[in-house]
């Protein structure tokens, strides 16, 4: 250790800690085993006096590294907020006394637990340094918005209002996107009774008059490289002229493509009098308030049928399995076009479930009913071109009968397909397989991991619809509008504002070297020891956020601004050369080794719990608050993500005599809850291979368990711990206690 590390250990005796634990003993442990330069006790450590006591030692230069033996690191964060000092907090309250019974028999094992946590805290802090911001990024208050539809225009205007410069790239020759093709749009303000102007002109006017916004029409993004705060983007026009601009963050609002109705052969899509919703918008624009005429013979439409969920919400081959969210309200709006022009038009909306999300949806539906639009719960099975107009066969689901009826015009409510560019996770086409269409990349990212944003489900780009909207798996790039999930105009505008806000955060954070969500504000970043690296590429492949590129020689090239600080690269590295200033293979490994290991004949097993700090660790704290007891043999270590768990920790723990090891992480797979998207999944894959290690050591498989838990598993986690304790009792103690 090049720098002198003066450890100060502070033990709190408040909150019952003093009654339940021998705090003098804890001080002794910190001094002897933990090598603390000074130790102090306080009866109320988080009080003003307690905090001032610690601050005085820091100011006097007596301590550079401090260990607090008090409550959970999740509690009293305002009080214990010291600058320019490395701090770790050992969890004596939620981690020890609150999960143990207050009995004479339990006293000894409870004290052992607390002693070990103090040892672990001292060992950890010894291997931690004060994180300093990466020098990689700078402040760049320019934002790139890709896509000039309603969403992109709203994002640009909102960012400009907040004082940021915006480059708005649109591939067409005019702004407006799909919304510009609409005759009118669904109202977003009370009384939600009639369709309103599509709003494109007013936004476009605002943009044209805004000095902060530069519009690039007929242009696409041909290259994006860099990281938040220093994105370098090539913007090319159709003719091939390219300008390179620098941006701090990116909003991708590339919108959607309508589902190709020609695939719905049962509805006679080739018939001129069968149109999709955008087709009807074109007819309505043409009529411009007058009677809408059907395409085949220009006869004014007297009866029209809207077929909801055409080719969507269906498991049939080639159909969309999801609901596109806007189509019910859109059909209602379009039925109103007819009623407005001629109230006697027979307008029928045929649905199985009518869904009108949003505050005004129900009012809008009711307004259509008042205007005489008929809503029939039924399923259309076939549309054939009849003599006088399309002949529709449907099953009336309320009256339970099959009906055939003629209409002048049939409108199919088809779904939305996200315009999300290249699917970088798609399997490469097999040898000889014909590639029918190659999607055009939106961002052309110069990332090792692929040209576009990874897709979550059905091609939509997001990282979690509920927990982290707008957050993609590429830091500093946010998606908004229907490219993120199916939505209507009102939702897209709200979305645009949210994404602009996220992008602004990314700009400001990266200028200070701070991490973005979910470890927002974290200054630490991964660094690697080049001499030790074997260029195995595991870190670059496993990084869920595509933060790591490779240089020509195959060494990882970190883009700290793109990093979310989860440590998945650290867990991946087989030669353990990756570390953070305050989180490393050593900072955890030394905690594992610091535990006092009783010998085999004392019948005191030791269990290790590596708990994800996002869900598992808080759940354990909550179990403590609810006074749910668990085994005194467990020693819990919070980890940034299960993905950061390096298998060396497991091997080390087994070698140093732990009897059981539990990895507690978030739900993985399709409905994942991992805050770092892939961390938990990667950890599970790695741990599935731990059996080899166990068999080499001639240990039982049951000694290592990987569990998916949620923050609500307040009862279940103690149960998992206790079951492991029982298992160890059954299979016996580990023979590796020396």
């Amino acid at each position: 250790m090049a720098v002198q590390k003066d450890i100060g250990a502070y033990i709190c005796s408040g909150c019952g800690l003093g009654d339940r634990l021998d705090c003098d003993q804890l001080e002794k442990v910190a001094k002897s085993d933990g090598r603390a330069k000074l130790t102090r006790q306080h009866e109320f450590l988080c009080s003003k006096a307690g905090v001032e006591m610690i601050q005085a030692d820091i100011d006097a230069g007596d301590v550079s590294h401090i260990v607090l033996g008090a409550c959970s690191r999740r509690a009293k964060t305002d009080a214990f907020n010291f600058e320019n000092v490395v701090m770790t907090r050992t969890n004596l309250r939620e981690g020890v006394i609150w999960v143990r019974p207050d009995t004479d028999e339990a006293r000894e094992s409870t004290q052992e637990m607390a002693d070990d946590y103090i040892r672990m805290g001292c060992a950890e802090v010894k291997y931690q340094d004060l994180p300093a911001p990466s020098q990689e990024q700078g402040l760049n208050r320019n934002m790139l918005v890709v896509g000039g539809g309603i969403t992109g225009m709203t994002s640009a205007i909102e960012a400009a209002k907040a004082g940021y410069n915006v480059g708005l790239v649109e591939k067409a020759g005019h702004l407006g996107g799909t919304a510009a093709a609409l005759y009118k749009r669904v109202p977003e303000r009370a009384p939600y009774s009639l369709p309103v102007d599509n709003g494109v002109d007013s936004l476009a006017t605002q943009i044209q008059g805004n000095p902060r916004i530069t519009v690039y029409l007929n242009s696409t993004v041909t290259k994006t490289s860099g990281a938040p705060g220093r994105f370098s983007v090539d913007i090319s026009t159709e003719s091939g002229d390219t300008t390179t601009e620098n941006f701090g963050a990116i909003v991708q609002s590339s919108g959607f493509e309508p589902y190709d109705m020609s695939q719905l052969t049962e509805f006679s899509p080739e018939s001129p009098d069968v149109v999709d919703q955008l087709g009807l918008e074109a007819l309505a624009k043409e009529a411009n308030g007058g009677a809408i005429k059907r395409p085949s013979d220009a006869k004014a439409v007297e009866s029209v049928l809207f077929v909801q969920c055409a080719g969507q919400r269906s498991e049939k081959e080639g159909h969309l399995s999801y609901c596109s969210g806007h189509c019910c309200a859109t059909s209602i709006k379009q039925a109103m076009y007819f009623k407005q022009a001629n109230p006697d038009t027979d307008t029928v909306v045929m649905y199985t479930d009518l869904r009108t999300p949003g505050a005004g949806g129900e009012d809008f539906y009711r307004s259509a009913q008042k205007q005489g639009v008929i809503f029939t719960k039924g399923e259309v099975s076939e549309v054939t071109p009849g003599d006088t107009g399309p002949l529709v066969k449907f099953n009336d689901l309320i009256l339970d009968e099959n009906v055939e009826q003629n209409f002048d015009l049939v409108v199919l409510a088809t779904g939305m397909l996200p315009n999300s560019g290249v699917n970088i996770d798609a399997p490469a086409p097999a040898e000889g397989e014909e590639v029918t269409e190659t999607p055009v990349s939106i961002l052309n990212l110069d990332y090792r991991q692929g040209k576009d944003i990874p897709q979550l489900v059905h091609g939509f780009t997001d990282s979690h619809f509920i927990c982290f909207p707008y957050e993609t798996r590429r830091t500093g790039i946010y998606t908004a509008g229907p490219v993120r999930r199916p939505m209507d105009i009102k939702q897209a505008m709200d979305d645009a504002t949210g994404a602009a806000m996220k992008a602004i955060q990314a700009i400001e954070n990266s200028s200070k070297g701070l991490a973005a969500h979910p470890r927002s504000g974290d200054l630490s970043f991964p660094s690697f020891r080049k001499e030790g690296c074997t260029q195995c590429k595991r870190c670059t492949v496993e990084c869920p956020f595509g933060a790591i590129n490779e240089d020509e020689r195959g060494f990882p090239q970190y883009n700290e601004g793109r990093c979310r600080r989860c440590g998945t690269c650290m867990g991946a590295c087989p030669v353990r050369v990756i570390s953070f200033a305050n989180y490393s293979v050593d900072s955890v490994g030394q905690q594992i080794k610091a535990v006092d290991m009783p010998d085999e004949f004392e019948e005191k097993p030791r269990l290790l719990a590596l708990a994800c700090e996002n869900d598992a660790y808080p759940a354990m704290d909550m179990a403590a608050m609810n006074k749910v007891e668990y085994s005194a043999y467990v020693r819990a270590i919070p980890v940034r993500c299960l993905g950061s768990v390096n298998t060396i920790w497991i091997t080390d723990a087994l070698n140093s005599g732990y009897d059981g090891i539990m990895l507690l992480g978030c739900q993985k797979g399709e409905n994942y809850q991992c805050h770092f998207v892939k961390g938990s999944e990667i950890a599970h894959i790695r741990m599935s291979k731990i059996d080899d290690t166990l068999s080499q050591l001639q240990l039982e498989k049951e000694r290592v368990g990987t569990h998916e838990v949620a923050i609500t598993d307040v009862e279940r986690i103690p149960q998992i711990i206790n079951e492991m304790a029982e298992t160890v009792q059954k299979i016996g103690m580990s023979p590796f206690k020396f």
Partner: protein
Amino acid sequence: MSELNNRVVEKYRNNFLKEVEANVEEGDWVKMCMQCGVCAGSCPLGDAWEHTPQKLFMMIRAGKRDEVLSSDAMWMCTSCYNCIVRCPRELPITHIMHGLAHYAARLGLSPKNQPTQKFAQLFWDNLTKTGRVNELKLGLNLYFMNGFSEGVKKSLEMRSIGQGMFFAKRLNPMEILGGHGVKDQAGFHAMLDKAREIEDAKLDKFGK
């Protein structure tokens, strides 16, 4: 079918919903039904009906005129108001049921020998005579509704209840001679006549 019915059919052709909206009490609410089925699930007599309110409303929209107007469903409503209370769209369902029943009766399309309808007619005829219900006569009319022999049988069956009511002074045998009535009988009948005149005038729009 009545002459009036033919005139109505002529006027509305095949738009039964419009016909209901214009002529049935609270009929303009029918289009607001969103087919959730809460009324059907809430009706305590739902199983005993030919059609639930939900179905009736759907049939009206689908133009099933004859089926709706000859249905026994609206006659079976006991006015418990469960459906009105629960309807998320606040449709006055009970009132629509009675409105439909009345309309069907006016057009002469209601089901033959529908007991509720028969009783309703007996009650109305009994009441409008003097302005007060003659319970003795109403009871006897009800018992003899389906013929003499059945009436005698029913009367004997109900004898003890009748006697009990007599001794409790709840039933006056002298009512058989005509019974009591409102003070101003002439005024009362004039009121009814006027009401009938207004009602008939409504139907004039279909031509005579």
